[in-house]
């Protein structure tokens, strides 16, 4: 078993070598693209996006945020109302979908139920008039790539969800596209399988070097797989950055709220000093924060603070120390969630790593908590 895996890894390595040698991957560019379905409201508002060759870019956002529409415009199933999309510097607005050469994985896989797995995979090769021998070779290689080498004669309905998913990925890749689009491909899988598939897709991307545009509403998926994530809301990209930047340095409260867990404290800016500012909360508590998205004294602001950055072991070097009352303790194994009332906000969450410490927390206790200035971001006020 082990040796097999090792063997497979070695194969992957060699293939990786092959692929990297001819360095494939297309560049995509959205140039002030707008989209409206009814002529009254914009679903996509002035989208400008550059995707370099070989990048894994995820469009992340709640439903109705315009991310799928952006993908469909790129695939050619929806025309852009305004603006131009470029594929390798070639405008493709007037290119029909079947001539764009873009591989696509659909939400429910869209495997053709009346064809076997091998026929499904051969389909894009047949319509490209690839010779029979080459078809067979490529189909087998694609099946091997997703570790379904012996499943060629099965019908999609005879496969499990995860296997169908892999076939869908293999089919999108079998004709060597430079760009692959994935529209919530893991939405139908259960949690465990989803996590496994995330890594597999990520590895395939790394091996082949194709450009991937991935749409999801699942932030974990986005963070796990992507080179860069574009967070969509209301037809606008709220923030476009690497996963760690997205988490560590959210540019506005929507992103802070949407990515990961987040404590919100509303207040007013009372002092600005360079990159720092001082904020007064509703109950008069004053906190220091990293100035991200406030422009002047007197602005309303929302402070964003990750629960795992708050400490019970306060010491003097901390920029902010306040007292809070413990409202609720939830035991989660690797950590304990503590819900507290801090500065009038009783939804204040603190995550304490479970180190088997002697010191116990008790509901009803009032204890000091503290955090560093850099972990507390002053963002735009939530309306």
């Amino acid at each position, binding site marked *: 078993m082990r040796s097999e895996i090792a063997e497979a890894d070695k194969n992957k390595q060699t293939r990786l070598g092959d692929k990297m040698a001819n360095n494939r991957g297309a560049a995509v560019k959205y140039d002030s693209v707008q989209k409206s379905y009814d002529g009254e409201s914009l679903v996509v508002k002035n989208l400008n996006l550059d995707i370099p060759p070989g990048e894994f870019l995820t469009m992340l956002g709640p439903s109705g945020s315009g991310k799928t529409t952006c993908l469909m415009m790129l695939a050619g*199933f929806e025309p852009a109302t305004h603006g131009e999309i470029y594929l390798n510097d070639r405008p493709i607005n007037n290119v029909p979908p*079947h001539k764009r050469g873009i591989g696509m994985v659909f939400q429910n896989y869209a*495997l*053709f139920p009346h064809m076997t797995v091998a026929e499904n995979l051969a389909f894009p090769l047949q319509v490209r008039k690839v010779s029979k021998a080459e078809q067979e070779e490529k189909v087998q290689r694609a099946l091997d790539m997703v570790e379904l080498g012996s499943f060629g004669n099965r019908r999609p309905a005879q496969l499990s969800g995860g296997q169908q998913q892999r076939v869908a990925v293999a089919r999108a890749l079998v004709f060597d596209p430079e760009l692959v689009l994935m529209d919530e491909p893991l939405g139908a899988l259960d949690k465990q399988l989803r996590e496994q598939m995330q890594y597999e897709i990520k590895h395939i991307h790394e091996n082949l070097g194709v450009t991937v545009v991935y749409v999801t509403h699942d932030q974990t998926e986005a963070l796990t797989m992507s080179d860069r994530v574009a967070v969509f809301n209301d037809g606008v990209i709220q923030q476009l950055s690497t996963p760690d930047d997205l988490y560590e340095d959210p540019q506005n409260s929507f992103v802070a709220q949407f990515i990961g867990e987040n404590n919100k404290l509303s207040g007013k800016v009372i002092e600005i000093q360079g990159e720092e500012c001082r904020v007064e909360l509703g109950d008069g508590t004053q906190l220091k924060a990293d100035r991200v998205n406030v422009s002047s004294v007197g602005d309303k602001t929302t402070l964003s603070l990750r629960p795992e950055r708050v400490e019970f072991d306060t010491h003097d070097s901390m920029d902010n120390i306040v007292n809070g009352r413990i409202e609720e303790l939830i035991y989660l194994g690797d950590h304990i969630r503590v819900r507290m009332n801090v500065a009038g906000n009783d939804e204040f969450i603190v995550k304490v790593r479970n180190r088997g410490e002697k010191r116990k927390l008790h509901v009803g206790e009032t204890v000091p908590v503290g955090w560093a200035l850099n972990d507390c971001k002053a963002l735009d006020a939530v309306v």
Partner: protein
Amino acid sequence: MSDTTSDQVLTTQDGKPLKAALARALRREKLRSFLLIAPLLIFVLITFVAPIIDMLFRSVENEIVSETLPRTVVVLEEWDEASGQAPGEDVYNALLYDLIIAVENKRHTQLGTRLNYEQTGLSSMFRRTGRRVDDFGEVYADQLIDLNAAWKEPVTWATMLATPEWISAQETWAANPSGPEPAFVVSEAARNALPTTADLYGAFARFIQTEDSDSPMEEDPWVPVYKALYQDLIANPDAASAFSGETATLVGQAAAAAPNFETVSIKELFIDADDDWGSAENWAVIKTFAPKFTSGYFLSAADAQLTPTGVELKPEDERIYLYLFYRTLLLSIMITVSCLLLGYPIAFLLAALPLRYSNLLLILVLLPFWTSLLVRTSAWKVLLQQQGVINDFLVWIGIIADANRLVMINNQTGTIIAMTHILLPFMILPLYSVMKTISPSYVRAAKSLGANDWTAFWRVYFPQSIPGIGAGAILVFILSIGYYITPELVGGTSGIFISNRIAFHISSSLNWGLAAALGTLLLVAVLLLFMVYDRIVGIDNVKLG
């Protein structure tokens, strides 16, 4: 918890076999579901299945010959139809007795009609003879009465042939008539001594009592009864010994005189009444159709006939049903194909449009269902006839000359056009319901994989719509193969179906046996096609919704 290994029978906690316990638990549920469907099941059985089975049974039933001519059929067994000669006197004697009973009961015309299906002319033969058969054997009656006037008296006959018990019962009844006369009973002695007479007189007495409500004591026997007595006396000169008193004397006297009676050939009397009685061919038909069950209707339905030498096809100019079956199949296939060609794009559009528009379109598709079938068919008459709307329009725009107006009705074209229109919804609805389930992402996927519009449709969409095509096609085909009213109205002579012929035999020619045989053949043909269809398409591939 006890361990159970695989070879042990699983049991419940109290040790009963698990399977039995499960069956008992399920029985209640099964009984309840059966009770739920029972009313409908009984209704269908009584009003639908039973009449159909009864009707289909008529296609083989043939009791009329053996019931109407029971004596003749028995004697005819001995006759060799291959001889080419008409049968002998004994057959005609038996025929006389059968026919006089049939004529009195007015059943000989039905028999004639039945046999006429097999051989033209037999109907009139029976009809014509029926009018004269009550005189046959008059010469024997005259001679017996001349011999002794007592033979003219009904009482003589009744006392000779009845049991003493009946005679006394009759006397009691006659003294104080209340209710019907006691049923006539033929005495064993008379039956042994004068079997033919007893048989025929018994039938006579029964007829007099039940049909005419008269007494055999007061009615003259039928003339052929005298012939029967003569025949018995010749066969059994010692018949008098079976009787006593006056009757014995009377019978003895007649038996003694009988050998010197002037005789007459019954066969010649029959041939005299109708020459056809002398034809061996006609007798062969009667013999062929004597059994209680016959394949004759089925053979006729397949344009074949049963001859003494076996089954053979009818002469070419008499064949109609095979061609009609063929035409019914061909037209049904053409109607199915045109429904598919016209319905597929509509269904495609219905499935692709947003719900708001597709609902409206669906209502338009269903609109014909809200109009009477007759109205729709009549509308096609108005449109298609030579002086109709379409021809007028074509002449007006100058495509065809006034002299060459198209013939589009009262022929196959009319049937195809009208029936395609009428059956179109049955194609569209199953197609639509299947297409509705085909996710648009399949076609998108095909396009993203490089297929152009046509390839994406043909390789990906179309194969998935085949279950709908299968359902629609079989629905339209089966409906059209049995369609009646539309071909009747717009089909003329060249556009009618086998069902029109069945209806003709049911309501006009009254040949129900043939109608039933044609219906059975149609049913079998449909079932066969259904099986072939199952082989090719697979019935589980058919989706109706």
